[in-house]
């Protein structure tokens, strides 16, 4: 616009600036973020993380994600950003403006994903690892492998919910329905898997149990560590490799859904 005395132009980064816009929009009032951080770190602070075996180390990390309130806050935070925030971009036409900026659709998709999904998950990472390493560094170093597995297992449900919501937003191009779908999927993951596991164990359906292990690898590791919480005798017990394989499979499923989301984003932003 300036016709004279133009400021000197340097190389800009459209990705960084779009990410900064998304970060501003997603985390302007970080009430949910602060609550999630405090809850995740608080649960660990009060759970005497200083001693125990490998299962203890695993459950310290996976435990808070399994609790309804902490887990729900994290999922609601992701849903708020992905479903409401991103859905609004489509609904209100802001996405069209963003797509006129000099960056590829892949980078535009990535910017949204980093802000809406990776930042909340980063909070989880920061809260959990910082507390464990601060209050029991020796224990954390000795059981780092189990801590990491517990952390990754805790990620599976929010990641899968997020991947489903990404696809829902791109399908609906709005935020309301995907938000509801995300909540339904989350509660199904919590309640339905526990219900199916109970049927699987008590009714003698090993395939059903394996399916639940895949959907929620925390159960697979719990079974591997020998703490199946009163589950029936003769229930399948995965080996360590199988449990890790189930965890990897679950994470790969979420990743695959997000890749499908990226491809769908290119298709659906041809508006």
């Amino acid at each position, binding site marked *: 616009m300036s016709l004279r005395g*133009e400021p000197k132009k*340097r190389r800009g*980064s459209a990705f960084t600036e779009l990410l900064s*816009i998304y970060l501003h*929009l997603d985390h302007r009032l970080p009430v949910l973020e602060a609550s999630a951080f405090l809850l995740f770190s608080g649960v660990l602070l009060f759970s005497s993380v200083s001693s125990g075996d490998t299962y203890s180390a695993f459950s310290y990390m996976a435990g808070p994600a399994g609790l309804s309130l902490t887990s729900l806050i994290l999922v609601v935070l992701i849903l708020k950003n992905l479903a409401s925030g991103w859905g609004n971009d489509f609904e209100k036409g802001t996405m069209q403006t963003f797509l*006129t900026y000099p960056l590829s659709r892949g980078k535009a998709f990535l910017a949204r994903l980093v802000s809406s999904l990776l930042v909340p998950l980063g909070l989880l990472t920061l809260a959990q690892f910082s507390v464990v390493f601060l209050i029991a560094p020796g224990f954390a170093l000795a059981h780092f492998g189990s801590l990491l597995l517990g952390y990754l297992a805790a990620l599976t449900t929010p990641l899968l919910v997020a991947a489903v919501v990404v696809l829902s937003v791109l399908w609906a191009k709005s935020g309301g329905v995907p938000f509801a779908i995300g909540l339904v999927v989350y509660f199904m993951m919590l309640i339905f898997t526990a219900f199916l596991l109970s049927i699987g164990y008590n009714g003698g359906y090993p395939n059903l149990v394996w399916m639940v292990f895949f959907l929620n690898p925390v159960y697979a590791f719990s079974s591997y560590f020998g703490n199946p919480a009163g589950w029936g005798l003769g229930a399948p017990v995965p080996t360590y490799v199988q449990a890790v394989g189930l965890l990897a499979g679950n994470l790969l499923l979420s990743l695959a859904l997000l890749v499908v989301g990226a491809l769908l984003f290119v298709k659906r932003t041809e508006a």
Partner: protein
Amino acid sequence: MKVIESRGLGKGFSKVVALDGLSFGVESGAIAGLIGPNGAGKTTAIKIMLGLLRPDEGSVLVFGERPWGNPRVAERVGVVFEKPHFPSGMKVEDYLSRIARMHGYPHSKALDDLRRVGLDQARDRRIGKLSAGMLQKFALVHALINEPELVVADEPTSNLDPQVRNEVLGLIASLNKERGTTFLISSHLLPELSRVCDTAVIISEGKMVGSGNLQDLYRSFGAEVVRVTTDSPGALAEAIRSLAYVVSVEASGENLVVETNREAAEGQLYLDIPRLAAQVHARLYGIESKNASLEELFRKAVSSDQGKGGKAA
């Protein structure tokens, strides 16, 4: 050199054909008007040029490159949409400064540019709280923040009051003159468009029906318009309408705007009008020739195309 070159563009949505072999070009440094009725395919053509849509057929090159998902093209183009959409929760200066940085300009450019259009008072206001006119101005500043070589504007003055409209048109003219910025402007406000445009692309039903320099277009579509001033506009208008070569007569106060088929009329009108005025006892105050307006030109071009049977599916 052509900044935009469209060849046989075709695009359909379900059973609707939006573009049907649209071909045109926009020369560097031009202010081109994209003219057409609602549903002619203007917005679809613009979206393809901006890389927001992919054509089903044909191609469009902007700065010699395909615009779909092409950051190099986006870097050189500014965009104003008819209904601008920005994140409503962000503050005016904050958002604009991020866009300035995105294009490699310092934060201070945002405030400088806001000041130039009188929006610096609203710098701390959330975008969602701007009035329609302020939002349109903001959209224009946003489109120009990267000093683009080409600005594509879809109805850029539609929400503005006459004073701001004049300012915007003045800004377009000065940017074109001083920086050589090329503009492609789609607008239904044809009288305003004709103030700044030097070329026009006329589209109807997804096809180009006329394109080029405005004077050449006036000549090729044979539009001639004569203004007649009289004390009996009603009676004289009625009489003039009976002439075979008259296309339309519009009355406004003491004035009649008479549009004719140029070849058929060729001087005859200046003989017929005084004769008809005498017949209906009307006093003539003047007869003057004037250039056809862009609107008249558009009407001619579209009716000429339909006369040839050029109709999109």
